[in-house]
């Protein structure tokens, strides 16, 4: 009696959250899958065909991957550097961490608008450049004729906006590593860079994995920042889903885009889980 009760208990306690998740996540997901594979109620791959043959599809796919491949590694490197620096600070540590994580509190659309204000024709950047005599008048950086600077603008805004989440995870992870490991390495003659590479980095792997999964999945869903800065000049996958849903009123193709993003995110997660795996026996 007692035993069966204690065995059922975990499931009972989990049940409400499972019901909740099923209702607001699983059902819509199933619905989206169904939607993407049907055309006016008939099973078909038509939505996917239309998605792939669309003029913007290749561009959106390329842009999204390019953004992820450029932004995420830079963010990881920056966050690693910042978290190691924060570790070394004694007094004022919390203040520095607080300032560095301010962008976390800004919504992505607002972040995009901030960078738009800086980078647009008559924005702060151009005023500064003009003041320095580097440009002759308002210069456009964010049009489809200037894809390089447009891309750079988006990259900058994304890095500014979302590095902090990686930082927070890494700082928490670093605090879990006892300082004795680094001290022991130092006693045995390791230089700071060697300690970082051979001790800190391997022990930080679980946190790096978490941060990368979170950040990469979110990066594949990049939209508001891009939309605010570049409008439709810089197509990305979620932006295309949005366009098909709202401008083209075609839910089926929008659902196909949504599914594509889900699959890419899952694949990225699976890769991270595999590549950055820490065997149980090597965990502290």
């Amino acid at each position: 009696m007692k035993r069966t009760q204690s065995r059922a208990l975990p499931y009972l306690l989990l049940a409400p959250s499972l019901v909740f998740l099923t209702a607001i996540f699983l059902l819509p997901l199933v619905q989206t899958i169904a939607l993407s594979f049907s055309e006016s109620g008939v099973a078909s791959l038509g939505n996917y065909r239309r998605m792939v043959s669309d003029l913007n599809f290749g561009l959106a796919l390329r842009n999204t991957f390019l953004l992820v491949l450029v932004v995420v590694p830079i963010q990881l490197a920056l966050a690693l550097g910042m978290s190691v620096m924060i570790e070394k600070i004694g007094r004022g540590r919390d203040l520095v961490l607080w300032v560095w994580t301010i962008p976390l509190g800004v919504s992505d659309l607002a972040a995009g608008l901030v960078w738009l204000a800086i980078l647009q024709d008559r924005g702060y950047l151009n005023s500064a450049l003009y003041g320095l005599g580097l440009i002759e008048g308002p210069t456009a950086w964010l049009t489809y004729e200037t894809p390089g600077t447009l891309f750079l603008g988006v990259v900058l805004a994304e890095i500014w906006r979302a590095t902090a989440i990686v930082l927070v995870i890494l700082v928490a992870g670093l605090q879990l590593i006892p300082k004795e490991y680094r001290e022991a390495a130092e006693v045995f003659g390791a230089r700071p860079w060697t300690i970082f590479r051979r001790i800190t980095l391997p022990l930080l792997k679980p946190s790096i994995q978490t941060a990368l999964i979170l950040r990469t999945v979110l990066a594949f869903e990049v939209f508001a920042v891009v939309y605010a800065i570049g409008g439709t000049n810089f197509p990305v996958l979620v932006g295309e889903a949005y366009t098909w849903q709202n401008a083209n009123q075609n839910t089926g193709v929008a659902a196909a885009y949504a599914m594509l993003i889900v699959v890419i995110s899952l694949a990225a997660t699976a890769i991270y889980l595999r590549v950055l795996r820490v065997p149980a026996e090597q965990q502290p």
Partner: protein
Amino acid sequence: MAEITIDGIAKSFGATRALEQIDLTVADGEFVALLGPSGCGKTTLLRIIAGLESATSGRIVIGGRDLTEVPTRRRGLAMVFQNYAVFPHMNVYENVAFGLRMQGADEARIKARVGKATELLHITPYLDRYPAKLSGGQRQRVAVARALAVEPPVLLMDEPLSNLDALLRLEMRAELKAVLREARTTTIYVTHDQTEAMGLADRIAVMHGGRIEQIDRPTAVYERPATTFVGGFVGSPPMNFLPVTIANSRLELPGASLPAPQASGALLMGIRAEDLTPVADGEGLPFDIAVVEPLGAHDLVTGRSGQTLLRVAAPAGSGHKPGTRIGLKPDPKRLVWMDPASGRAIQAQ
């Protein structure tokens, strides 16, 4: 040459004084044990020598080189950490090889040295294992092997055998002593096990409350403690301290008269359990037996003389009974006299 000079080291953590004023010189190749109760500052002192902690004042000199500005990695020492700090993501072989790799040793040399160190500590069967799959004692031996493998001129060990069973500890102790003597390694060895300190060390530094109370050869620390603390901390059972009153430069006991180092007044008479000989009631100090513990080699007899608790090592099987009264005769050559106010030894004139 790796002579260590600890010159006026003091350390405060905020308002806490961890080390008061430490002066200590360890000769090249010497083995000094730091012995003291928990929290007396042993680990803190080792960490300052290693450069992992900065002293509030004072300096560390090793081999004539002032290390104040020298970073830890260039101090040329090895250390066994109290909590081992064995790298969890490296197997035993890589852990032990770590110091050698940092020195850029070639693979053949690493292999030889790791083999030697792991053999000495009986951990060769575990070379491929990760620390998570080792017992506490095995992990501790990995930490010791990692320090020995680099064959450092200076070795700092923080309770390196604390987690081993009594037999293994005895064996490791002997092997460590032999290896370190042969390599002429200057060693500072932290322990709060006084038999370990007595057995291993050329000299013992007894620490208490952030100070060194006494530093001397093991037998001298045992026989002539400089303070009542040292007498009580070193040796098992602790030294007996009996308050006595002196008159005419002598201590008069029934059937005995002992010379005292001062003309008159109150003193503490310190004497080891084995230096009190049980005699018949009416002779020497009156002693009421409370407990008799047969320990094999001798009987440990605990009781009271007046108000003072005394412990006596009587010959095994001497048949003393609790509740009876006997007399105790102190060996006059093995007495130490302490000032009751300061707790410090009084040097006989």
